């Protein structure tokens, strides 16, 4: 290879470029299209009764229409949630029965028989094992229902239509229209949503999508929302409509999350992440009937199990921490009590309490263990009967029992509403934080993504608490 000859070729090309003028690109593209239509002309025969295309465009006219597009979207979201909530109940209690009521006691008696010291039993079985068991029992069934449902919708071809409907809103927020897709993924799991942002080409818009994905209420937080809404908000209305009202309250929180997502995206694109909105082609693919069993299989393997595994990895040390702070005493009170008392003042300002704040610190690894942690700590603080013992995670079977404990812990309607708000607006779980770091490779943006939502959460709950007390 001769460098001089290559330079000659490049010089020659520069010269020729001048000669042929600057419409080269367009001319070439035009000839390509002409060639293509020539080839197709005598090979493709199109029967003019294009029935299927018409059906597709009929469906599109409805699901992307100005008046029906959004209601249909919320209806489908509500339906998927409803199926997840209803469907997860039974397998959840089955798993809880197996992991907590059968395996847990036998592990305890096994430890007793081999003469394991009490602190090791407590640390390993009451701490690590129980936390992992809780995450599996609470998290696996809803994920195993939500992800396949979501994947079926995706395979059918509905998601690009959602992106199409939301495109204008995202554009106004200075974000990419494909963020609608990653936002939807976030409703299942924020870590999965963050990974899905790879479909966004522009680094600026991708970063916005990553930073705001936490505003999609994830699977780990749905159960908390549903439980608290049922106990405190559903109870405000007659029994016949209480579950419906509770469902609406939860959907309201989810929609509020979307409002924050648009708001924060807009603020970011106007300040630190300034730039043009990139245009993109979104082809609306034909609707395809999904292959049910195949979809079920791949979504279980690719999504559910991978996300579950990560949650387990992070839940195990959290269980150990919960047990430790409840069993290490300073003076004559446990470490947990000390922390709760020092948080109580700040908690009151936010309309929450020390128990909730501590629970959120302990539950950073997995949002699923927030409610069990709150109940355990509340029982410990109030000293009322119930539960399994110091530092042992539990969840009560009947909602009335849970309500009883929470009300004994001084909970009011304000506490409930603010807990729901705080559950939406706080730092992402450590799985998501780790994923954000892996995707952005930036400590700065990972820190921002972790701290920004919690500051918003503090501000919102503080304001709600002040107005509430002013008006009440």
């Amino acid at each position, binding site marked *: 290879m*001769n460098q001089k000859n290559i330079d000659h070729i*490049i010089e020659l090309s520069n010269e020729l*470029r001048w000669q042929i003028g600057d419409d080269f690109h367009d001319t070439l593209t035009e*000839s390509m299209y002409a060639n*293509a239509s020539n080839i197709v002309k*005598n090979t493709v025969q199109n029967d003019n009764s294009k*029935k299927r295309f018409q059906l597709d465009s009929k469906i599109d006219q409805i699901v992307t229409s100005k008046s029906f597009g959004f209601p249909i979207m919320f209806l489908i979201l509500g339906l998927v949630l409803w199926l997840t909530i209803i469907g997860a109940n039974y397998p959840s209690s089955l798993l809880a029965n197996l992991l907590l009521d059968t395996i847990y006691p036998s592990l305890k008696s096994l430890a007793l028989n081999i003469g394991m010291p009490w602190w090791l039993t407590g640390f390993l079985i009451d701490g690590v094992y129980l936390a992992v068991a809780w995450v599996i029992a609470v998290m696996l069934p809803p994920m195993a229902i939500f992800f396949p449902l979501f994947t079926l919708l995706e395979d059918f071809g509905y998601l690009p239509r959602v992106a199409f409907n939301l495109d204008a809103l995202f554009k106004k927020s200075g974000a990419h229209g494909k963020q609608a897709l990653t936002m939807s993924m976030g409703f299942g799991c924020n870590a999965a949503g963050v990974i899905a942002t790879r*479909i966004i080409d522009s680094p600026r818009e991708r970063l916005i999508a990553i930073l705001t994905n936490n505003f999609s209420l994830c699977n780990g937080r749905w159960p908390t929302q549903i439980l608290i809404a049922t106990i405190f908000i559903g109870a405000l209305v007659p029994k016949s409509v209480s579950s419906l009202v509770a469902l609406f309250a939860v959907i309201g929180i989810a929609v509020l999350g979307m409002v924050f997502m648009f708001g924060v995206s807009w603020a970011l694109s106007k300040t630190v992440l300034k730039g043009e909105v990139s245009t993109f082609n979104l*082809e609306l693919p034909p609707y395809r009937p999904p292959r049910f069993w195949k979809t079920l299989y*791949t979504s279980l393997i690719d999504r559910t199990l991978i996300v579950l595994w990560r949650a387990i990895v992070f839940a195990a040390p959290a269980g150990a921490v919960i047990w430790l702070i409840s069993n290490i005493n300073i003076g004559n009170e446990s470490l947990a009590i000390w922390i709760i008392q020092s948080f109580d003042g700040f908690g009151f300002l936010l309309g929450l309490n020390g128990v909730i704040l501590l629970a959120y610190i302990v539950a950073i690894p997995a949002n699923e263990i927030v409610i069990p942690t709150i109940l355990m700590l509340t029982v410990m603080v109030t000293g009322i009967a119930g539960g399994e013992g110091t530092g042992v995670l539990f969840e009560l079977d009947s909602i009335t029992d849970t309500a009883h404990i929470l009300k004994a812990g001084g909970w009011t309607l304000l506490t409930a509403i603010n807990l729901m708000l705080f559950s939406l607006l706080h730092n992402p779980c450590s799985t998501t934080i780790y994923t954000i770091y892996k995707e952005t490779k930036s400590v700065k943006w990972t820190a921002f993504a972790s701290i920004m939502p919690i500051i918003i959460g503090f501000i919102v709950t503080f304001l709600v608490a002040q107005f509430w007390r002013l008006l009440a």
Partner: protein
Amino acid sequence: METKLNSTCETCTHFNANGLKKLGIHTHNFDFVVALAGNPNTGKSTVFNALTGLKQHTGNWPGKTVIRAEGGFEYKTRKYKLVDLPGTYSLLSTSEDEEAARNFLLFGKPNVTVIVVDANRLERNLNLVLQILEITDKAVLCLNLMDEAKRNHVSIDVRTLSRNLGIPVVPTSARFNQGIPELIHTISEIANGTLVCKPYRIQNIPQNIEKAIKVLVTEIKKEFPHIPNSRWIAFRLLEGDTHIINALRSGELV
């Protein structure tokens, strides 16, 4: 990612070409590299799964494949590594996915390129096909989604299309594993040289441009006598593509 294979399917002649072994993600010691290119949402990932036995999730929305997926299969004792490229409409712009696909075709030098097209939208898909055929002459057209084409009453004269394009055309419905054995057989024939393609090259370009291209191609061929895509390089040089200019300087293209 799931790599376990169903053994009954693996041996069933109804589903597989004779002598086929799907290798999942195990792609070491391969004899040939096969690239999978095509427009978004033409079912590339489904073809990929059908060839490798992998069960990667395929979604019904464009741009689903975000990471380059690799897998393999063995056919008649030769091993093939399969690379699933991101779906693109063209190779002429500088967006990230188009560059990734183009770079692999240019620098990865696949032994065979499978171009997956949507049989329902052949004309639109041909734009990319013609560009790929300027880069490589070892290609097979996978005419996918034939089941949908049938429902839409679109019929395609496969033999004439194949003659026009100068490469083999295999109609498939990858979702139902139809046409996959034929596709594998054709890939092997191109890879081991029993089937030689004479791909269609873009015609009817305005006189002055065609002349400029001819001058450049002669010069390029003088320097690199064995290069298969001198005309494509000429196109890119005339466009002033700095990426290609640099690649030419560093000798990456040979």
